[in-house]
């Protein structure tokens, strides 16, 4: 009797969950389907869901006409570069706060968090003028720099929460055995920290890839990453729905895959450890 109730419950919750998941995912699915249609089919009423003339020509056109790879490479350089530099600055800082905390550590952490709260639009004018005067507008270096600073607080926080979980006894044991700080870092700490480092980098890469305030305002063509490339489809060219869909699918595909691996880190990284 009890078993039957449980089975029914599983069936009901499974059906409901799948329906809802499908509903939320539908816009993405629809975009992917549209990217394989001809422009005529993309506009068709009633819309055709599966039985249309499948074609991959949109993907070829997107590359030919608007040089998709140029912008994809920009995205990789900007997201990757800002992530690496942020890690270089954040790892030592987080290490120091996690393993040699002082009474000011908590205040410093909270202050770092508060810099993330500053709305970018509040400093848009000075940043734009500084970039103009230093020739950094529409340059990849400029975008790497600003995205690095923008995400630095999140990176430090995530690393801090990971480092905090490494048992201190192990470090003390290593120290007793006469290990120097450098050796301690390389042989004891690094292997234990690798998962945390990897997931921090992953989340930061995703955030930088999707960043669309500074990239839209500070780049136009040469340094434009995919966010800006897609925005160019908002002009009348956006009427080409199949091509818009193909370009969009290409722009989000890598991140959807990476995102799948970073679900759990997402919570840690974006709530600053306030939800566990």
């Amino acid at each position, binding site marked *: 009797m009890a078993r039957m109730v449980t089975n029914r419950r*599983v069936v009901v919750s*499974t059906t409901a969950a799948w329906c809802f998941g499908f509903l939320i995912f539908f*816009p993405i699915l629809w975009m992917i389907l549209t990217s394989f249609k001809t422009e005529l089919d993309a506009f068709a*009423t009633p819309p055709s869901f599966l039985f249309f003339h499948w074609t991959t020509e949109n993907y070829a056109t997107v590359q030919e006409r608007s040089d998709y790879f140029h912008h994809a490479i920009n995205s990789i350089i900007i997201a990757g570069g800002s992530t690496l530099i942020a890690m270089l600055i954040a790892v030592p800082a987080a290490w120091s706060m996690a393993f040699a905390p002082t009474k000011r550590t908590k205040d410093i952490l909270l202050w770092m968090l508060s810099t993330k709260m500053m*709305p970018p639009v*509040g400093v848009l004018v000075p940043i734009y003028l500084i970039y103009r005067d230093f020739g950094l507008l529409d340059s990849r270096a400029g975008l790497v720099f600003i995205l690095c*600073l923008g995400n630095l607080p999140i990176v430090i926080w995530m690393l801090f929460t990971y480092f905090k979980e490494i048992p201190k006894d192990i470090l003390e044991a290593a120290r007793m055995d006469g290990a120097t700080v450098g050796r301690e870092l390389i042989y004891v700490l690094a292997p234990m920290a690798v998962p945390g480092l990897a997931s921090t980098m992953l989340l930061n890469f995703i955030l930088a890839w999707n960043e669309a305030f500074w990239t839209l305002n500070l780049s136009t063509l040469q340094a434009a990453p995919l966010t800006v490339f897609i925005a160019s489809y908002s002009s009348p060219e956006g009427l080409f729905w199949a091509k818009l869909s193909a370009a969009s699918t290409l722009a989000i595909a890598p991140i959807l895959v990476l995102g799948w691996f970073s679900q759990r880190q997402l919570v840690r990284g974006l709530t600053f450890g306030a939800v566990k």
Partner: protein
Amino acid sequence: MATQQTQLLARSLLTPAVALLFIWMIVPLAMTIYFSTLHYNLLDAGSETFVGLENFRYFLTDPAFLASLKNTLVLVGSVLAITILLGVPVALLLDQPVVGLNIVRLMVIAPFFVMPTVSALIWKNLLMHPVSGLFAWLSRLVGAEPIDWFNDAPLVAIILIVSWQWLPFATLILLTALQSLDEEQKEAAEMDGARALSTFIYITLPHLARPITVVILIETIFLLTVFAEIFVTTGGGPGLQTTNIAFLIYSQALVQFDVGNASAGGLVAVVIANIVAFFLVRIVGRNLEG
């Protein structure tokens, strides 16, 4: 002895990060404050004059400010309401025994990983287009007149798009919190004959209070600065109907090149964000103690 050495090392490791963030925060902010007291237009460079608080008076009494403040509040409030009212049931659903949970969870989380320019343009064209969009076809299917979203209800359209992007975030955080809820406590309640509804009201909901607060605060900080979705769909229009504070400041700075006025607006935005940030930092700080 070794401790002193470690302390010194620790400090020198921390310094670059602190210095960089300090400069990043203080230099542009100081410049914004300085610019906000000037009459300064990029089209008329070289004629900057000190005008005191004139820019603030102008910005705060500008009808565009009131309109965009209202739009900002409506946008933030509606998206918060939608993502939490939907996020709680979805999280509860995903906390049930579900076959193929991993795939369902991936589908639910996916919108969060879509870049804002893509989600805005896909929704605007493929779904919300008044003639060929999927929503138009659906409403004709049930015999209703299709809605011309971006003309008749542009702010609602933006709200729907942004809610779709942030629902995964709320769901994921609430789900994480639910999974840490003590199963035994719930079972004990069931043993005592508590019905599902009262278990939910007296055990689950109080447990969710804190994660919901966190979702509200973090989403608010990001939602106050929604920009790309407006930039690629409506450009703030028609009229001022979808202009929020972030977009208003952007257009004053980089469309009208009015540096002084945009800076004053920027500071107003900073003050608004800081009010929210104050509460978030307190909650996070309390958590650090434990």
